[in-house]
Every structure is written in C-alpha cells, then in structure tokens.
C-alpha cells in the first residue's frame, strides 16, 4: 500500500506523510542556511530538491539524514519524530555524491555492511545483499573490489548498499554528478525504474534541472534557504510563479510589461497576449518553443541576429525593441526558417504568456 498512494489521498491525511519538516531553521554561526522550511514529502514518491549551490538543498538532505541538527523546528518520518536521533537510528539511508564506498571491502561486503550492523544472520544478509545487487543489475560483481568498477557501477553499488536495509526513505545527494552526460541519462532511467520496483520514498538532491524533470514526481525548487515553488515538473515548467524559477527551469524570455487583463504592453508600445493574473507592472515570461515567427495580430517586430542548428530544433535569436536581450525562439519547422537579418514578427498564445512579479531589472 505504500507503493502507490494517490496524491489526493496523501494530502487528505496530514501526519501520514512520509517525511514532514515543520518550521525547520538551520543556522551555521551567523549564516542562515534554511529559513523556516515547511515541507511534506509523500510516502513512496520520487521527490527532487532542486536549486543552485548554496540554496539549502543539501542542508535539507543532511537534516533528514541526521548529519546536521536543526536550529529550530521538527522533522518527522512516518509519524515518528527523528530530529533528535543520530543517523544510525533513523529509518533513512543515503547515496553519497562521492559514493563513499568502503575501498577495503568487496562489493558484496559493502552492500552487506548495513545488515551486519543490524546483526542480521549471515545467510540472510548474504541473500539480501545479492538481491539488492540484482536490483541494480550487478549480481555478477559481488566479489569485486570497488576500485575495479566503473563510475556508473560504483554508483549502482552505492544505491544497492543504501537500499538493502529497506529504509523508509532513500536520500540521494547528487548521485550522478561525477558521471558523464551519456551515462547520466542512462542511470536516470535506471534510477526511476529502481524507484518503481522498490516503492521507497526517494529524496533526490540536484542542481541539474533536466535530471529533476526527467525523474521526479514532484520538485521543490529552492533558493536562498527557502522553497520558491513546489509542484510536478509540468506545473513548474508551465506555470512558474517567480522569475527565479522560470529562469532556473528551462530556457525563457523575459519582458518588462504593464498588464491589464489578458493584454500586456511592452516597453516599445506593442501589445501582446498574456495569461493575466495580475495587473500593473509585471514581468512577462514566454518559453522559446511557444513563440511562432511570422505571427499575425498581437505580435512584436524584430530582426534575426543568429540562427543555430541544434539537431532536434533550430534556435533563433531575435533582436527587438520590446526586450533588452535578444528573444530566443526554438523552431521545429525547418521550412519556416527565416534568414539571418530578416525582419520577423513574433507571437504566442495567451496561455503561454506567463505573468510574474516585476523582475529586479524592471525599473531599468
């Protein structure tokens, strides 16, 4: 039953959340790493903490893992308060960024270590360790030493070692950070698969938005020690609630705008469509792939200053008096490709013009 709780179900029963952080504050001396964090992570979900370095995501992970004590607030895991417990007494296991495999033990001994600490009988622990290795596709590698494995294999051993204790929560601290792009993409798929197989709650820390988008059920975008936005990948991508989130997740174009209903007026006087939601001074955000060239009504004029062929799409940079920086457009349709220097008009559907609070550069 823990494997697939429906989101609505979990929401309706406060307190049964997998992990519950209430008003957590963390200060290192004079520096505040977390300012009053409230966060519920549901049982069984793949949850991502996403943000730039120094945003507090790793601190949050360390708080759940028990490597850092909160200055204020409470941490609950499956209805049990844990913030006073040391790491080895929490139902939580961690996959470390550096893997932290024990170099003097074989792969099997590494995986079995946690069970040995729990005094699980040898036959049982050997079998469970073998199972865990099977789960990550390394059943043949038990007798190898960690140094004899590739980076990707070491990473999977680290996952097996953490999962073998069947924790309530698996914490992953940028586990793919040290690997190259190709391998990272493959392991993203594998990790998501392992998550489906075991049904354990995964809390995954990363600064790579693509990684978060591709695996997570929900993402918390963090900045400056607080959560900027929490939601599914699609919610966050389509409806960012702040300029920071829009900027951090995917590519985006920003316009200073004055909004009135579903119409936004840009600095050059042109009037474009927007989703509305607030009036007065605002920032208008449009994703590159939502923009059409050679638009009709409600469009802005500009000149193509760069075209780049990027394989699956073509990227245009369009200089326009309506925005400070060139507007980026992602074109899928090669037939519609304008030439360099050509005058074009850009437009988008009202729903794609997301209205945000005025940005820091709005006054200028």
């Amino acid at each position: 039953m823990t494997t697939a709780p429906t989101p609505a179900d979990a929401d309706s029963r406060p307190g049964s959340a997998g992990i519950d952080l209430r008003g957590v504050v963390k200060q290192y001396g004079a520096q505040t790493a977390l300012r009053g964090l409230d966060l519920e992570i549901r049982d069984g979900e793949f949850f991502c903490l996403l943000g730039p370095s120094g945003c507090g995501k790793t601190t949050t992970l360390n708080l759940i893992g028990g490597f850092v004590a909160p200055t204020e607030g409470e941490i609950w895991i499956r209805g049990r308060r844990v913030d006073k417990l040391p790491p080895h007494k929490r139902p939580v296991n961690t996959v470390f960024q550096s893997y932290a495999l024990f170099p003097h033990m074989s792969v099997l001994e590494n995986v079995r270590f946690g069970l040995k600490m729990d005094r699980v009988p040898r036959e049982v622990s050997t079998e469970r360790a073998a199972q865990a290795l099977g789960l990550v596709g390394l059943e043949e590698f038990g007798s190898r030493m960690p140094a004899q494995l590739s980076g990707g294999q070491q990473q999977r051993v680290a996952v097996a070692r953490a999962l073998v204790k069947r924790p309530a929560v698996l914490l992953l601290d940028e586990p793919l950070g040290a690997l190259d792009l190709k391998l990272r993409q493959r392991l993203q798929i594998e990790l998501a698969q392992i998550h489906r197989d075991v049904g354990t709650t995964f809390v995954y820390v990363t600064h790579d938005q693509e990684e978060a988008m591709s695996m997570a059920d929900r993402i918390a975008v963090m900045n400056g020690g607080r959560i900027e936005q929490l939601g599914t990948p699609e919610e966050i991508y389509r409806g960012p609630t702040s300029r920071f989130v829009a900027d951090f997740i995917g590519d985006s174009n920003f316009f200073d705008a004055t909004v009135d209903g579903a119409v936004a007026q840009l600095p050059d006087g042109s009037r474009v469509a927007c989703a509305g939601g607030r009036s007065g001074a605002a920032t208008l955000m449009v994703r590159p792939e939502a923009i059409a060239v050679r638009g009709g009504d409600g469009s802005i004029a500009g000149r193509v200053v760069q075209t780049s062929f990027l394989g699956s799409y073509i990227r245009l940079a369009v200089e326009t008096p309506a925005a400070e920086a060139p507007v980026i457009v992602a074109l899928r349709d090669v037939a519609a490709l304008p030439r360099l220097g050509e005058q074009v008009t850009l437009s988008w559907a009202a729903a794609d013009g997301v209205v945000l609070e005025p940005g820091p550069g709005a006054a200028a």
Partner: protein
Amino acid sequence: MSSGTGTVTAARAPGDRLPRLASALGSYVGFVPAVLLLGLCFLVPLGIVVCYSFWDTVDYAVVHHWTLGNYRYFFSVGAYVSTMWATLWVAVLATVIAIGLAFPFAYWLSRYVPRRVRTPLLVLVIVPFWASYLLRVYSWLTILGEKGVVNRFLHWAGLTSHPLGVFLYDRPAVILVLVYLYFPFGALTLYSSIERFDWNQLRAAMDLGASPLQAILRILVPQIRPGIITAVIFVFIPILGEYLTPQIVGGTGGVMIGNLIVNFFQEAEYTRGAAISLLVAGFIVVLLFVFRKSLSTKEAYGA
C-alpha cells in the same frame, strides 16, 4: 614497431645513440657521492661488524678466527638475556602507549581542526622532535629528579616529608620518557595517513547503522592500517637502540640493550659488542623486511 617510427629511429640513430648512452650513464653519476659516503661509511662498517661478531678476541686483539663464541657468551649470561627481554618489553610497551596516545590526537587534528590551523598545530608537535633529542631527555630530570617538580609538589602538598627517588631510575621513568620522545613521530605518521581519509565514509557507515565507534574501528582503522604499521615500526625501532634515555633516567633498574652495547665498546670488547649489535640490527632488518609492503617513508617523514 610501426614502420614510421622505425625510419625515424633509424635516421636519427647514428648521432643519437652516443648521447643516449651518455645520458643513461649520466643519470647514475649523481649516485656516486652517495654510494661513496653511504657505501664506504655505512654498509662497509656494518659488514665489518658482521665479521667482528664472528671473530675472536685474544689479549685485546681481534684475531680472524671464525667462531660463534661471542653469541654463545651473550646468551650464557643471564643478566644480558634478561636485559634483552626487558628491552623488547619496554619497546613494545612504550610503542603501544605512544601510538595509543597518538591516534586520538591525529584523529582530532584531521577531523575537528580547521584546515588552515592544522599545519601550524602539527609543526608545533614535530619541531621539538627534530630539535635537541638530548635536551628533551634531560628536561625530564627537572621534573622527575630528586629536587624535581614532582617531588617539590608532593612535599609542598604535605604528602611526603623528604624527596622520593622512585620517580627516577627505573623502568616506568624510561617508558614515560620514551613515550614523550616518540609520540610526535607516531602523531605525524598517523596524521598523514588519516588526513587522506574520506570522512564521507564514516557518515556512510553511520548512515548504514554503525555506531561512531564501530564506524571508526571497521571503516577508518582498516584503511589506515599501513600508516599504523609504519608508525609502530618507526617508533619501535629507535627504541630498541636507545642508550641515552635509560642512561639518564633509568639508573640501574632501567638498563636496556643499548647500554650493554656501549659498555662493551667502551671496554674495547669489540667482538662481543659487535655480536650484540648484530642481534639488534638483524632483528630490525627482519622487521623492516616483513613489513616492507606497508612501510612508507613518505608518511613517516611527511616528505
């Protein structure tokens, strides 16, 4: 070899072979002074000592007559044999205590001390070690001596009415001073080995359910085993050859094998002295050979 590189080599060979030979020889030239110094003044004398230990002394003159008599003599005198065992015993005890004290210190230094003050704190331990071996032994006289700090304190506290000699001139005093002398060496060696340890592994072990002590014993200690062995050996060996410490603070009760060796040579009994020296040297060489895989001079001297 591919044909391409073959032609290049062939084309360059006539003018190149001679310089290459010269540079090969040249690379050995640097060894010549060291070979002269260490060969003639270290290996050769050691060889002579080996010979002496198997030669005979007749009327204070060494005669080249091969015999095991010097060794037989050593083992036939009960006092010598018991001094040998006592030396081993003192060395083991002092080493264990010194390393036992050094481990928590090295752990503290590498785990809890901010990086930028670590080197100064380490230098603070090591610098006195390289300075004035004699003075460091001697300084204990002012503490343990008849008019030393300990006796003064006991007298002042009213615990004793006259100075006690017990703090000096016995094995405990020797062991205390030996621990004092060689602690820095153990601390340096252990530190340079713990310093490279990835502390995340300790976190990982605790994350997997190990208590802090279990994590240290099962994860940290096995990985720094070579460092521990280096520390143990390099503390143990010089203690075997200690002369000054037992001489100054050991009195008659604290005699070690080094004192025996010096006595024999001072009385010009070269062959018998050589035999004891060779026993010590042989034991050390065996130790070095057995543990050669784990020993790292880099760690021991922080080079």
